[in-house]
């Protein structure tokens, strides 16, 4: 492997790690929003 390939690999790995984390963050955010909405619907007097 050419030394420059290690440079590309390091930069790519950095962004892969950040993108994976950001996607887990987005899915957790969506799940919590949904959970909170359902809980509020359940506890509302009309429910």
């Amino acid at each position, binding site marked *: 492997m050419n030394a420059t390939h290690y*440079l590309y690999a*390091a930069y790519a*790995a*950095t962004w892969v790690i*950040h993108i994976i984390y*950001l996607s887990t963050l987005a899915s957790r*955010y969506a799940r919590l929003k949904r959970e*909170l909405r359902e809980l509020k619907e359940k506890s509302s007097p009309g429910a």
Partner: protein
Amino acid sequence: MKRSFPIFAVLTALLLGYAFYEAMFVAPTDQMQGDVYRIIYYHVPSAWTMFIFFLTNFVASVVYLVRRNPKADAVAAAAAEIGVVFCTVVLVTGPIWARPVWGIWWTWDTRLTSTLVLWLIYVSYLMLRRFSSGGQAPVLAAALAVFGALDMPLVYFSIWFFRTQHPQPVVGDGGSIDPRMWHVWLLNWAAFLCFGLLVFWKRYQLEILQQEVNETQALQTLHDPRSSQ
């Protein structure tokens, strides 16, 4: 606040793009290592950003232990998680850099091992928060964070105190670096710090939302114990 997030996000993206361009095409090539040394522009700024978030976690944990403020707990949780992400980047880019330069992926020297231990401590911290139930979880996590922070000075000063495979510092005391490299280095650090703060902002909101969900669930259980079954 809501309106400023997209503006900050766009500015951070532009800064990251510019910092990448400077790191890849403008910074001079290292005479010894060639272009592979450019990994430094991602590796070291990630390490510094990691330290800032772990330090934030430490301060917020102390504040939580003293005042039991849920917002301090949210700051601690968010900072620890982002610190772990940056620590992962450091632990992945380090060996990728070491292989062509040292001829090995990994060695159990003080700097590398203490960084791995730091990562393990904060992963344990996150697992403790994730899997323990009951009101004492944030207190236990804060106590673990205070002890975990003791590893930070060991990581930072290990290259001064011990003979390690890891190079000595090239900035600050005892080091010298080409001013053009230093400029690109600082630029990349500013970019990663802004990116980290941006993610921290969202992660903090997520933690506050989690606290809201927990409170609503607890209130519902109090009013109707059957709803928790």
